[in-house]
């Protein structure tokens, strides 16, 4: 986060010094992993780096990137949000219902974000004020939010027809889809919030040491509530992109999004014990997971192998963090 400006004469040795630090590999695991993966897949099938496929990958990574950013905030405070994908589903159904009842796109988007924020607020309140373990609260919210989605939609997908939404999901600047730009904007904003505001410092302090943060007067309960709210809001935003992409609001569980959001964060070098990590890491983690799925599909590997591959990659990344201690 703070760029150490080494004098040029020692830069070479400083780099070698950094390369020997396990923390360097943890920090850059997702970037290095992505580069390696791209190299392998391109060698096996040059179509992997065709403009069409790059566009498809960026498009596919947008939702996961946004969820991973939300998950990062929570994990940086040493918490976890297991409900993030179900919250997205719930927000998607709310969005779909608002659209079909003729509320208009802008209001429907607001409703989607508000639905996500509501789940985040409940999570945050129960964890920070209720003193219930984050794992249990968000596990409960996972079930409750997907239940609500099913009840509201009566278990049926809600078809959403909207020209602007279609344009959002299909359009872009050359190879860069609009949705990917939204995801990058979210990530840049999150990075600034985390590293350039007092709030961000307090998030890291709360995750690093609740006692120390409290002793200096940081309202750790408020910080905890805020990160779950952020995760909920971003789940709501992701819901809009999901509906735009699929063309309907599906009350399906979306469990792969949950696992992948945690996986992207772990790949991105964010400590599960909190207090340490970045936003760029999880963003590259999300890209890596998307590239992995895309590459395997391109090579004709059965999609049943994808969860297996994701599992191996994630545990491998977690193994790296072990050496950091």
């Amino acid at each position, binding site marked *: 986060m*703070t760029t*150490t400006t080494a004098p040029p004469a020692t830069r070479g040795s400083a780099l070698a010094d950094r390369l020997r630090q396990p923390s360097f590999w943890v920090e850059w695991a997702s970037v290095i992993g992505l580069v390696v993966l791209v190299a392998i897949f391109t060698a096996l099938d040059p179509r992997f780096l065709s403009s069409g496929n790059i566009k498809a990958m960026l498009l596919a990574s947008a939702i996961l990137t946004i969820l991973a950013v939300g998950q990062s905030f929570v994990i940086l405070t040493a918490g976890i949000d297991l409900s993030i994908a179900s919250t997205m589903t719930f927000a998607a159904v709310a969005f779909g219902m608002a659209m079909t009842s003729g509320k208009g796109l802008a209001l429907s988007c607001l409703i989607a974000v508000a639905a996500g924020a509501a789940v985040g607020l409940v999570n945050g309140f129960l964890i920070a004020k209720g003193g219930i373990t984050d794992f249990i609260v968000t596990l409960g919210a996972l079930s409750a939010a997907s239940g609500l989605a099913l009840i509201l939609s009566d278990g049926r997908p809600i078809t959403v027809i909207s020209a602007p939404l279609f344009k959002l999901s299909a359009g872009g600047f050359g190879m860069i889809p609009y949705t990917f730009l939204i995801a990058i904007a979210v990530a840049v904003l999150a990075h*600034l919030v985390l*590293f*350039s*505001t*007092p709030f961000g*410092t*307090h998030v*890291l*302090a709360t995750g*690093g*040491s609740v*006692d*120390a*943060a409290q*002793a*200096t*007067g*940081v309202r750790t309960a408020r910080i905890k509530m805020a990160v779950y709210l952020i995760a909920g809001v971003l789940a709501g935003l992701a819901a809009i992109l999901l509906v735009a992409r699929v063309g309907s609001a599906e009350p399906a569980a979306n469990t792969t999004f949950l696992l992948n959001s945690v996986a992207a964060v772990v790949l991105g070098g964010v*400590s599960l014990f909190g*207090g*340490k990590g970045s936003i760029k890491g999880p963003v590259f983690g999300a890209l890596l997971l998307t590239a992995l799925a895309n590459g395997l599909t391109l090579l004709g590997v059965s999609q049943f192998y994808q969860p297996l591959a994701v599992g191996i990659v994630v545990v491998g990344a977690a193994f790296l963090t072990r050496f950091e201690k």
Partner: protein
Amino acid sequence: MTTHSTEQQARPMGDVLLEVDGLSLSFGSVRALADVSVQVRAGEITALVGDNGAGKSTLVRVVAGVHTADEGTIRFDGETVAFHAPDQARDAGIETVHQNLALVEDLTVWQNLYLNREITGGVGPFSYLKKRTMRAGAQEMVSKLAVNVPAVTSTVRRLSGGQRQAVAICRAAGFSSKLVIMDEPTAALGVQETARVEELILRLRDEGHAVLLISHNFDQVMRLSDQVWVMRAGRCVAGRRTAETSGEEIVGLITGAIAG
């Protein structure tokens, strides 16, 4: 939010800065403090000694705003105060160096020094951290007390025990604090590091801070302090000028062999 005020230096030595009068506090049926009265003078190191469970920590926690007393008054810097949270004590100019130091290991030295007192620019939701200013300020705080810390940009995790203690003391000394409370600052340190921290405590006093020091180390108390208060079983049993007492007398007062 400015660093370092030098106004304390203008204060004539020996004014009573903190006056605790008739303080009592019970936790349920446990009477932790009973009618405790002590004074801390500006520009002095005041030691608070006593056996484990004598109420030293409880007393400083009341002064630091962690606990609120059932009875009694606290006058600080000429005003009667009643703190309900550590921030309030901090805002009034009372800083505490906790036994666990309250540092976040994965944050840098400067981030810890400015934790929850960040310097920001911009307005409202668009306020941002002035990192350069804080780094420079941290460097100034560190060099003012001649603290031996590798760099203010290194994380606390990389520091030794003594260096961490120094950072915690540095933080307490900054931000125009008038009284610095230290709870066993050298308990976990080696001989050399203890000497360094003791130098630092003396420097704090010379800078004009009042220091309230809890210590189990009698040599240290005799070496550093100007005034000693002895606590036993929740009561303050005696107060002595350090120059007019001896280690034996203090030990006697602590154990009760000498009635206070």
